[in-house]
């Protein structure tokens, strides 16, 4: 199960899953150094960083952004 960190609201991290469902999670449950824009996977009851998913998603989005900005 993949999540993206949308933003932080005080001590709460707002995560969005791939169905766009919003999950509010205490910051303490996130991996150390987690930032807005990071993608995480949920495994064995824990949120773990997923750098590869973050990289791939970001690349996909940047391509789309560039395409839109050039039209």
């Amino acid at each position, binding site marked *: 199960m993949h999540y993206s960190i949308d*933003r932080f609201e005080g001590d709460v991290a707002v995560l969005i899953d791939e169905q*766009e469902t919003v999950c*509010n999670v205490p910051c303490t449950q996130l991996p150390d150094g987690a930032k807005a*824009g990071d993608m995480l996977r949920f495994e064995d009851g824990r949120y773990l960083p997923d750098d590869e998913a973050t990289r791939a*998603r970001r690349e996909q989005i940047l391509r*789309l952004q560039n395409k839109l900005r050039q*039209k």
Partner: protein
Amino acid sequence: MALFNKKTRKKITAAVAAAVVLFCLVIELGQHIPGLGIPSWDELFTNADLSSTSVTPDGELQVYFIDVGNADSILIRQGEANALIDAGERGDGDDVLAYLNTQGVKKLDLVIATHPHADHIGGMTDVINGIEIDKFVMSFMPEDETPTTATYLNMLTALDEKNVTVEEAKSGTVYALGTAQLTVLAPLSESSEANNISVVTRLTFGERSFLFMGDAETAVENELLLSGAPLSADVIKIGHHGSDTSSSQAFLSKVDADHAIIPCGKGNSYGHPNADVLSRLEKMDVAIYRADVHGHIAIATDGKSLDISTQK
């Protein structure tokens, strides 16, 4: 015979020149030291009705703060023109479309996505797929901080598939909405915090003005204060749902609004609005309208008087 002799005329000319230079210096000083209460050049010109951007208002301007809980969505109508700022959270898109439909809006000339957080663009994909949009204005994060949410991906995909014209928000741009004008005031700089790339806009119509803050925080408020841009407004859409990340006393004083709109949800998980922000507004005798208390909030103006009505 001249009223004054040559010597006196020279002295008067010198005195007038010195006064003009002193005046210019004082105004310039005011631009760099906020809080002195010195008007900006723009404010002086606007008040003297010498502003190049003033247009005679025709008909009525309507601004609707749609109740989408702890999220933003604002509809602006003037004459034949319709604009939408943000579309609430996922699930609100259909409600926004239904609201547009009730108001008889068939097309959006302008849509602004203030920043890519899910409580502002959550409903955007549905809106993009549900109504014709002429121009979509948004701001962008630095490349290595680009958001990765499914929400953002789906919004961009919809923009691409529907071939919507996308424009990057640039401060200083003025969009005409009928005889009203929507001026972009921010973003003024890049930021790692998406709230601080919020597209901040000021809407003017006759003698009345509105300031829409998105989720801009005090860092942006300070940039705006230093920029010398006209910030006064009758109505302020309070930044970040009334959170104390925004709405500094200095900023609120400069805007000097009579009415504040806070789009916040009943029992939201984030403690919005903040008690200190509310207290600041109350001490300034600002009339506060909140989505969790008042539901939909509608403001109409002929350019002179303001008429506010609420759902609850």
